[in-house]
């Protein structure tokens, strides 16, 4: 994705996916299963946030963890709360 200054903007959904894969590995979730439900959760979150013009970090976290809860509650919990552990 590029903006008007021709600089590449980071896709927040890609960053979220990388972080989720890391958390899934740390939690001991099998890689294949984790990748499957992470992709589904992110796709569902993208759909849910489509109508919003500005997406904050909190919106992103909330949307993804809501979808992720259906597949793995531990991963959803850690994704939502890992930056308020300390």
């Amino acid at each position, binding site marked *: 994705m590029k903006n008007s200054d021709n600089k590449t903007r980071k896709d927040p959904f890609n960053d979220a996916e990388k972080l989720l894969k890391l958390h899934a590995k740390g*939690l001991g979730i099998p890689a294949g299963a984790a990748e499957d439900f992470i992709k589904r959760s992110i796709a569902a979150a993208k759909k849910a946030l489509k109508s919003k013009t500005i997406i904050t970090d909190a919106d992103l976290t909330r949307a993804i963890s809501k979808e992720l809860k259906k597949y793995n509650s531990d991963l959803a919990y850690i994704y939502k*709360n890992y930056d308020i*552990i300390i």
Partner: protein
Amino acid sequence: MVIFCFLQIPSGVFSLFYHFRLAKTSKKQADDAALSFILGVEIFNTILWLLIYIIIFCCQSSFISPLFLWLMAGICLADAVAAFFFYFRKDKTSTATFISRRIAKCLTSRAKTVKSRSDAITLGFVSCLPELLFTLPLYITCSAFLQDENALPRAILIIIAVVIAVVPLFVIRAFFRTDHNLAEIQRLRVKLKPHFRFILLLAYIAATITLIDLAIINM
């Protein structure tokens, strides 16, 4: 000594660190890195104990005067109030502490990116720094009282104090080694949070009462 066990910043950093190490390396390597982290915490505690002990020793005159005791009692009472009301943030679903979010984010990102053993030791060392507000009065008071002890009991007490500080980290390490994950550990920490607050309050109040008692006797 009990107070050191219930302070949560090193435990939080350690949990995150172990979780990210498990994600990036094997179980054995994660465990080795965890021991390096614990060594960092031990180094911090040992250096602080010895430094304060030496400073007090070099002051030549007796530190345990009524003024010193009243001062430390006042500080312990302030710490008791701060530990109960301000140590943990208001959010009931997390174990977020009083440190600024920027520092917390910095510690979290360091826990995620640490690779070598020396980095793990440094992270363990640095994770103890934010809690100096709560631990420094205890180090000073205990070091002052240790001046009056003989060499062997003094050494034993310092070793016990240094070891007790890392007991929670070994407990968390045992949880990870028995296939519990960060989510389970974190849920347990959130569940025990009100108990930690209460125990910290009681421990600081006990320290305050002991110091006031000694101040009155010494007057």
